[in-house]
């Protein structure tokens, strides 16, 4: 599991991010906007994965965390003219605090029940945002005209790429350590981790805080990229579905997996657009996701790994 970080790893990361950095010269603005969305989706999927992919505590309320980050910074900067240099860090901290709230149920309940509470959190948030202080949240219509950080697709792209790169490498490096091993171990057999003398409550709390922090960063920057926010787009089962499917299709409990999943899904959706312009795309996209999940719950990462093993095994 915890193989050491080598130069080869770093070279691969550099190659990947360097290649991504060249994209604006190769593709048009429209495609670029698609990739920006893929970058943010990758951030959300990685954040879900820290929390759920590893420890096995499936969160169905991830949009709740992303939404807290997005709404906090949107309200602060739009309603109170707080500079984004302050509103974004505040949003991240608030999201992490909310992550702790999220965590409380995990002390007592597991598995399916945990997933349900988080789903309830999301629905609760959806309804509350519309009725409590609509003067701040903008109610059902949300807020538009939120300050954007960048102008044009290219700049927006580089910002999203930088964010994704920093988050991916940090998480990857962190998960390469014994901590990553311990978190994955919780997902496999929590009692045995506790029985190895490790405080699983502390470990889970940490994972939740990191996951929430990343969700907060992603949500905050995303709203400053879009310039607007609305409850239905955010606290939505379809959004939740997209995040989870990205993480799972790519391969939970890896960093590359959720990233690859996010790109795969975004491009699949984009590719289907000319043929199926409406929501029907979700039919194909969902079916592919479902078949893939049924075939290999560990995702593309595992499929490729097995294929490689078979190939090298055949050569040996």
């Amino acid at each position, binding site marked *: *599991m*915890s193989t*050491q970080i080598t130069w080869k790893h770093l070279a691969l990361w550099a190659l990947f991010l360097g290649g991504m950095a060249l994209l604006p010269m190769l593709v048009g603005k429209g495609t670029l906007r698609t990739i920006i969305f893929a970058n943010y989706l990758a951030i959300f999927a990685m954040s879900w994965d820290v929390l759920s992919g590893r420890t096995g505590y499936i969160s169905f309320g991830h949009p709740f965390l992303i939404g807290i980050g997005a709404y906090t910074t949107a309200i602060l900067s739009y309603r109170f003219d707080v500079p984004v240099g302050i509103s974004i860090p505040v949003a991240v901290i608030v999201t992490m605090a909310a992550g702790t709230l999220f965590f409380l149920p995990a002390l007592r309940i597991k598995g399916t029940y945990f997933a349900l509470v988080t789903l309830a959190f999301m629905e609760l948030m959806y309804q509350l945002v519309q009725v409590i202080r609509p003067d701040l949240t903008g109610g059902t219509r949300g807020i538009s005209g939120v300050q954007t950080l960048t102008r044009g697709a290219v700049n927006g792209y580089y910002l999203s790429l930088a964010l994704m790169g920093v988050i991916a490498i940090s998480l990857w490096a*962190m998960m390469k*350590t*014994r*901590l990553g*091993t*311990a978190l*994955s*171990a919780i997902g*496999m*057999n929590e*009692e*045995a*981790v*506790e*029985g*190895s*003398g*490790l*405080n*699983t*409550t*502390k*470990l889970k709390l*940490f994972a939740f805080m990191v996951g929430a922090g990343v969700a907060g960063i992603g949500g905050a920057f995303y709203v400053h990229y879009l310039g607007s926010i609305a409850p239905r787009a955010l606290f939505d089962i379809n959004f939740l579905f997209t995040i989870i499917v990205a993480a799972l299709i790519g391969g939970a409990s890896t960093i590359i997996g959720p990233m690859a999943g996010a790109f795969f899904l975004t491009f699949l959706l984009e590719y289907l657009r000319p043929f199926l312009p409406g929501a029907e795309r979700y039919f194909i996209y969902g079916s592919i996701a479902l078949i893939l999940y049924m075939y290999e719950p560990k995702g593309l990462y595992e499929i490729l790994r097995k294929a490689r093993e078979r190939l090298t095994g055949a050569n040996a």
Partner: protein
Amino acid sequence: MTVILELEHVVKRFGGLVATNDMSFEVAKGESVGLIGPNGAGKTTIFSLIMGEHKADSGSIRLHGEELTKLATHKRIRRGVARTYQVPRPFADMDVLANIEVGLMPDSIMAMIFTAPADEEARAIARSVGLNDADLHRDPAELSMGDLRKLELARTLATKPEVMLLDEVFAGLTAGEIEQISGLLNEKRQEGMTYVIVSHDLRSLEPLIDRAIAMTQGTFVCQGDYATVMSDEAVRMAYLGH
């Protein structure tokens, strides 16, 4: 003789079922005790109570004189007691070495991030329980029952316990594997390890223990050296029904 582990009037109920009914016993340092009783007697439950995986309804469990009942499981491990499971459930997606490494981890997030895995130590422990170097990078799913039990022992030893609670160590093993594990347990015993061992395989258990405690239906029956316990009327009743 210093007492290391004590149970006093421990009671545990599952709904209407009294799984542990006022159990009291002591284990001395360096002693090896066999805990015997028919299926469903409540042996495993006692281990879970000592480890804090189930909470006792009443009674006291002490290690080195310190009350354990209020402590979380991971804290009890750090105090020097650890158990193996009747049905080994290793971390399925980690190789053998990483499985053992979990037992060697420091319980601090910072230390987990900034210290390297203790591969050498994990390897040494693996060798000490008789796992082959070739097995260290296998997945647990590829191991035989005997090797799984060894891995279970290794993971437990990695937490550096003073008292080991061994649940059905011989179940599902071949004669050769039983001999190997017995040898290993005896070795550690010479080095001063304290054991509480549960086994249905009484013949293999006998040479490993100084003393036996018999229980049935959650209740203490008798204790003494192996021969005395086995000739006890009540024990024969519980085991053989006559």
